[in-house]
């Protein structure tokens, strides 16, 4: 079987929601010395795109995103274990992510994290109920390309206004692209508070982050 066919099979099994077959195909590919980078770019990254399309077409929903996220997480671990030089792993840059102050919802944030990692981002997850100070400290310390703030509660929107002001006041606004995500977010709000983008769902958020680092 050619490498292209092997890579295609891995992608198909991921999108086909077949955990065992997907991981088995990945292990078999590594055993045949297929380049791990080829698996990430040819199978995983394309599968993420396809999953995004299926989600937008209304054929995939959150359970499918979570399950494919689980498949990808396990697959990335298998691949990472097989790479002696971790530096060989594709690195699209750092992203800091967290749910805004007062909000304990984390499912959307966790899905975005999982898919960003699968794409090759180095994600620093600050968790939930993250204060403006914590975001600012993390930006100063880690110098990410992107800051992603998640919220589900509309009350968190008020906190995000304060967080954006604090980042501006700290003089680091121009150091980082900022994306807002979660049900109450929209482009008008993002513009109002001075964020660079707003994503209505996890897959849109991942696509925007990729576009930023690839442009």
């Amino acid at each position, binding site marked *: 079987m050619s490498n292209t066919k092997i890579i295609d099979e891995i992608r198909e099994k991921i999108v086909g929601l077949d955990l065992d077959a997907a991981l088995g195909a990945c292990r078999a590919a590594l055993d045949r010395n297929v380049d791990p980078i080829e698996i990430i770019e040819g199978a995983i990254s394309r599968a993420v795109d396809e999953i995004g399309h299926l989600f937008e077409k209304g054929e995939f929903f959150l359970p499918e995103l979570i399950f494919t996220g689980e498949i990808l997480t396990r697959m990335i671990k298998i691949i990472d274990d097989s790479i002696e030089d971790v530096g060989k792993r594709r690195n699209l840059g750092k992203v800091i992510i967290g749910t805004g102050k007062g909000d*304990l919802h984390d499912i959307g944030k966790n899905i975005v994290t999982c898919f960003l990692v699968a794409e090759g981002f180095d994600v620093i997850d600050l968790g939930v109920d993250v204060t403006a100070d914590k975001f600012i400290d993390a930006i100063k310390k880690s110098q990410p390309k992107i800051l992603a703030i998640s919220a589900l509660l509309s009350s968190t929107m008020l906190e995000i206004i304060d967080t954006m002001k604090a980042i501006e006041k700290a003089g680091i606004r121009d150091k980082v692209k900022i994306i807002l995500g979660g049900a*109450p977010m*929209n482009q008008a709000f993002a513009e109002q508070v001075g964020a660079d983008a707003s994503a209505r769902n996890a897959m849109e958020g991942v696509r925007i982050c990729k576009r930023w680092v690839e442009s």
Partner: protein
Amino acid sequence: MNARERMIAVLRHEQPDTIPFTIYAGTRKLVGLSIYEPWRKLLDKGLCLFAAESVQAHTVSCPGTSMDVVHHYKTSTSWSPVDILMSMTKPHTVTGSIRTPAGVNTFSAAVESLDLSVMAPWFQDQGFLIKSLEDYAVFTYLAEKAEYQPNYDDIDQFKMIIGNYGIVPAFVPKSPVQAMIMLMGPKQFSLDYYMHRKEFNDLYKVIYKKDLEAYKIAAESPVEVVWGPDNVTSVITSPTIFKEYSLPFYNEVADIIHKHGKIYVVHMDGELKALADLIAQTRIDAIESFTPPPVGNFTIEEARAKWGNKKVIWANFPEPVCLQGERAVRQKTRQMLTSAAPGDDFLMGISEGFPSFLHMLNAVPTILRTINKYGRYPIPTSKPGV
């Protein structure tokens, strides 16, 4: 018409004098409505109360089980007994354990206040009641052995308090699949659905069977409305899941509720567009907390086109609009009214959290004023202006 008559008329597919506008009548809001003058006046201007999360028609016990809960307040108190007392009502976390002959379950949750009618405990990612397959045994036991008994005293008392200002429904357990989402959280729910289908289905069947007992008690209780707190959204309850797990349950309990002449209302506050055809197949009477864009993804016009007049649409005012000011609130209210024109089978309400208490204080009178001006039945089908 008084508020109660107006709400019941719509829920029974009759014509109201004005589109009813409802708020949930939890304890804090009731205190505000009884004391705070500007709010008290709203009741006489037609504000309708829906005591959605207040009273159940049953009590429940489970033999052989016990639950211990520890409240964690950290540093939010002092030497003063008064400080200690007041701290107890403030946001904090709880940890607990449920002991059954089938095993022990531990959990943690953040609570907004000890007054749980204001904010139910929020179970966190690591604190959901079902964290792994091992926890299934405890909850299978709890569901199987639960003993439901009718208790109508609370309903009678609340009906006396609410009077003609609104409706007191029977507050039933979540439907089985929604209960499982709340027990497990979306992540575990999704993974178990795909990776442990047999165990998933077995637990569903046990909860389904037990839920029928609670719904039957509610159907026989002295209420006009049975309210299911289901938080349905296609984001997690996908069409496949809804069809296989939700639809059969809704129709079985709808028949029980209708047999006793009651109205079946279900809280569906999420994205409903992908579920529209399936919801049409249910025998639910009213979709409460129907949330149009920008929060939901299904407009009132689209819903009416799909459901005809078979479903009462009880539309939730999308709360982020409040951040855009009074003019935006007025415009959105008029737009929602126009979308529902002439207004048959349509109520409006606020069923979700507001950005702040102040936003709610400002928005509710604005929405009510706008409805009283433009929401008289029948609503003309012209385009809204301000």
